[in-house]
């Protein structure tokens, strides 16, 4: 999972990564050439030998790039397939998860659209400001509370 995020950040800073790879390989070539030179080769021969040992530079860069990007996509697909398999393997859990998500999203949408139409939009009447809310209170001291009535 950490690897996933690291590759995601690498994907974003791809250009810098490629420049760095170039520099890294260049350093490798210089080191290799230096070593050949220390062993008694002429400087151009040493450089040539270093290049020969490294082989196909473009292929190497492609292979490293494959580690950054293609593996990343492959693993993403693997993760998705793994998730799908786990969901199929545990049907009740995934159904409950989907159901609770659906209910949660549905209820929220309903509530917010209700609130939106009630609180934010003015009511479709000619003079919304003149509307009042009437509240009725009935005092039940003499009649007693409803529970007692039911229990009789």
């Amino acid at each position, binding site marked *: 999972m950490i690897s996933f995020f690291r590759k995601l950040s690498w994907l974003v800073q791809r250009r810098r990564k490629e420049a760095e790879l170039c520099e*890294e390989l260049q*350093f490798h070539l210089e080191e290799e050439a230096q070593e050949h030179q220390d062993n008694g080769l002429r400087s151009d021969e040493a450089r040539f030998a270093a290049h020969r040992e490294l082989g196909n530079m473009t*292929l*190497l860069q492609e*292979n*490293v790039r494959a580690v*950054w990007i293609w*593996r990343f996509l492959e693993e993403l697909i693997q993760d998705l397939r793994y998730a799908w398999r786990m969901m199929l393997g545990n049907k009740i859990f995934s159904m409950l998860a989907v159901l609770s998500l659906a209910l949660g999203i549905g209820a929220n949408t309903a509530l917010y659209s209700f609130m939106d139409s009630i609180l934010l939009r003015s009511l479709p009447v000619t003079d919304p400001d003149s509307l009042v809310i009437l509240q009725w209170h009935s005092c039940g001291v003499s009649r007693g509370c409803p529970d007692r009535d039911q229990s009789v």
Partner: protein
Amino acid sequence: MKKQSRLELMQGTLDLLILRTLLTGPAHGHAIAKHIQRTSEDLLQVETGSLYPALHRLEARGWIAASWETSNKGKRAKFYRLTATGRKQLVNEHSKWRSFARAMGLVLNPGDQEAS
């Protein structure tokens, strides 16, 4: 150039060798390759073509971390070092390799075991 019979690196062993090499301290790619070659008495030749992809793969997994530092010759180089996860992985892989080598030995030389 001496034509010594060099061993082909087996699949998956390069990672272990890199991790083990970095246990002694941070190193850049070229130094890692040379260290493996020297320590194995020139029997193991690390191909540059597989070394750098392996380094980047290990870095992606978080087993090693890279940073740009100046080498002892004053040039900028990408140094790799072992992370805590990498250290754990090294112990893991090492014991796996040991039991694998033992198992191979048991099958290839059954006589040795019976004799001892």
